[in-house]
């Protein structure tokens, strides 16, 4: 379709001789959200990394708009403060939100000047989430964004995703805890076996 942000056709991939995907087809348009479910080792991260362009050995075609990838590794440099980390991301791929605003949104005001190595696991994840606001891209690829987050953090992730959808973006999210998104689609990799 015209406003397609992600088009995957005939995606096949195997690792260590285990077939993870055979002929997966997937389309995401503006405002779509897709939850990726599946048991450990079913290939969620692999798929996301392939879409992001970090994992090349697959067959099939992936057409994707610009994307932001948030993986198992937070992408937050421990030596830098929260503000410095985000400022750097802002320079790489400028979005429309200011660093302070983003930090406030993820509930980390007061931590601008704290080096991330002095933050708790969840606080680091929150800084990583703030990146989604500081940078701008139509497609979000989130790999277990709820990791290490408390209740409020989990609510935050949901509202971030909704915000992205309202803004006309799309979200592909691998998770083990149901997100219960408004008319969000769910792709269960186990069911496909």
């Amino acid at each position, binding site marked *: 379709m015209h406003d397609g942000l992600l088009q995957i056709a005939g995606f096949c991939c195997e690792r260590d001789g285990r077939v993870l995907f055979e002929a997966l087809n997937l389309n995401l348009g503006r405002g779509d959200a897709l939850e990726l479910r599946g048991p450990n080792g079913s290939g969620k991260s692999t798929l996301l990394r392939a879409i992001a362009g970090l994992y090349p050995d697959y067959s099939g075609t992936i057409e994707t708009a610009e994307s932001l990838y948030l993986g198992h590794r937070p992408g937050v440099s421990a030596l*830098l403060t929260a503000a410095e980390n985000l400022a750097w991301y802002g320079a790489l*791929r400028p979005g429309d939100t200011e660093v302070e605003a983003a930090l406030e949104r993820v509930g980390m005001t007061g931590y601008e000047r704290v080096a991330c190595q002095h933050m708790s696991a969840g606080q680091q994840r929150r800084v990583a989430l703030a*990146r989604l606001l500081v940078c701008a891209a139509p497609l979000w690829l989130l790999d277990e964004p709820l990791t290490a987050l408390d209740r409020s953090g989990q609510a935050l992730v949901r509202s971030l995703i909704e915000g992205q959808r309202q803004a006309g973006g799309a979200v592909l999210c691998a998770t083990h805890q149901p997100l219960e998104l408004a008319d969000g689609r769910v792709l269960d990799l186990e069911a496909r076996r």
Partner: protein
Amino acid sequence: MSTPGRLFAAQFRRELVATMRSLQEALNPLVFLFLAITLFALGVGVEPETLGRHAPGIIWVLVLLSNLLALEGLFRRDFDDGTLEQLVLLGEPLFLPVLAKVAAQWCVSGLAMTLLAPLAALLLYLPADALGVTLLTLLTGSPALTLFGAVGAALTVGLRRGGVLLALLILPLYVPTLIFGAGAITLAMAGSDVSAQIYLLTAISMLSVTVAPFAVQAALRISLEQS
């Protein structure tokens, strides 16, 4: 997309800040340099004339090795915390931040070593009149060291304990720089003209500035595919 200048500046600033936060780590190579020099004075024996005659070679070799030490961590930490993959995904054109990273690295190791060379020379009884040339060779040669080294670092970043492997990959590439660098000082001590060697060193550095960033860029993409 952001303007090239802004991209470069942001990366450069980031590197410097991170270095300053772990200043001791940044100082390690320098300390290593002097540690090694002291060991040499102790191990090889300290007759001023022999030491003095070999000083150029010793200084340059040790500069190579400590450079190696500095480069080992160039991408390691970014790789571990996942910022490297983000850089590769978001940084466009990638060679700009890469160049910035290497430039910052050079300021911290290469430049610093150059500035400290006189001290090293002093410890090794290098004749005072060869000091200027020593500085000059290091200044013109060290960029090549950092840049070639960056290629190796990028190739080995994904691997556990890449440290010594890195040495294998890049030390052979250091040979010309070493030869011309040390050779020029030796010649200068013999009183002859060394402008040719300086030009050669500069040429090598220029070459590496033009080639290395792209090699690094490719190498990073490759290394990230593993995990």
